[in-house]
């Protein structure tokens, strides 16, 4: 299975380490040619404006949109923002997941937090959610399933077919269950 991590900016190394611990040697993706034959792509946390600009300048937007028809894609935090159709402001996004996102929805860094989460599809007890200047999903469109909400009703994990998006950072924990969940989605293509 061939998994890439978008390495324009952000915590791509942390995702690569998680995948390595699961026996997957991930490829760092900076240019369109590197997307070829991927079964899955992770878009890491980072600044979504920075990632969007670099993706635009190096012509990655359309190739990633094309990849979405054949591969699994997962965005964490800034990656969730980058996947959205609507982020409430003018910045480049992929527009792949039908959702309205609010950036920095919980406030500035001082409001960043950790909380135990219950996530649909992730068995084995609570998952530690790390939220850093995190976005939340305000509304989802047709075809998007909500996987996790906070107690105040904030949507923090969604799935649309083979695309998933999380407001929090599983790559900052030692818990690899969400990475395994993603790899299972990516593997479905290989088997079909």
């Amino acid at each position, binding site marked *: 299975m061939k998994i890439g991590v978008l390495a324009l*900016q952000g915590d791509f190394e942390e995702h690569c380490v998680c995948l390595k611990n699961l026996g997957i040697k991930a490829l760092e993706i900076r240019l369109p040619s590197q997307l070829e034959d991927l079964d899955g792509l992770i878009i890491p946390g980072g*600044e979504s404006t920075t990632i969007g600009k670099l993706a635009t300048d190096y012509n990655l937007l359309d190739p990633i949109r094309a990849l979405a028809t054949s591969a699994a894609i997962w965005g964490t935090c800034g990656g969730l923002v980058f996947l959205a159709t609507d982020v409430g402001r003018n910045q480049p996004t992929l527009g792949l997941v039908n959702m309205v996102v609010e950036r920095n929805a919980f406030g500035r860094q001082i409001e960043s937090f950790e909380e135990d989460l219950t996530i649909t599809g992730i068995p084995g007890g609570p998952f530690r959610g790390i939220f850093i200047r995190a976005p939340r999903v305000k509304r989802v469109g047709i075809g998007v399933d909500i996987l996790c909400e906070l107690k105040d009703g904030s949507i923090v994990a969604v799935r649309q077919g083979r695309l998933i998006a999380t407001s929090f*950072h599983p790559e900052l924990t030692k818990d690899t269950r969400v990475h395994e969940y993603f790899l299972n989605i990516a593997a479905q293509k290989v088997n079909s």
Partner: protein
Amino acid sequence: MEKGTDTVKRGHAQMLKGGVIMDVVTPEHARIAEDAGACAVMALERVPADIRVHGGVARMSDPGLILEIMETVSIPVMAKCRIGHFVEAQILEAIGVDYIDESEVLTPADEQNHIDKTKFSVPFVCGCRNLGEALRRIAEGAAMIRTKGEAGTGDVVEAVRHARSVIGEIRRVSGMREDELAAFAKEIGAPLSLVAETAQMGRMPVVNFAAGGVATPADAALMMQLGVDGVFVGSGIFKSGNPSQRAKAIVKAVTHYNDPKILAEVSKGLGEAMVGIGVTQLPESERLAGRGW
């Protein structure tokens, strides 16, 4: 819900990796930096090159200016306080900056003690010249480290010296037997637990950026190839002939730091770099890196 944990403080720096943090002195600069792809900005009244020219005591910037910059951009905003000046840090935390730089670029307020950064919910970044200094800052609660370099000079030589020193010492400690770590910890004046953590991880336990003298895309890529996680650019952008274009070029250079063809492309036609001062021409009394211990 837990706030202000080590994980969220260090985690924020992890989100900045592979990025460029730019010094800005006005909301307009901040917008140029954000549009160029900066992953954060450092809000201050004067860039280090102007602090050198101005002389006198350099202090925390006007909170009103920092707030204006915070309202202008959507990316994280950092601000500097003086070494040891924990009340300036309290004020910066109160206005909600995303990161505090306890910085040698400002005039130190305490010649013995750095701030006890564990007492704050806001994370801190601190400068270092070597691994011992970095680990002492982490022991005090710093969640991110940067090289000191020599700010406001446009001369990358000190940043290179400090990065090579830090990364060289990490390589050394990674190859040590466990029973050699205590003597090494004593030698570099750092807590044994952090020395052991560094040896085990084979890298700085927190995110480690380069700073102090980066002026060109090639400088930025040089620091990345030496093994830092990202780059601060202070005077290098807004003291140059074409700040917007240079800022964009440095952002691209940090992402594509291993691709000389792209580095050549982004280095073309940038106009004049900041004039710069050779560090060897600076008298010892005007060097900022010696501040702090």
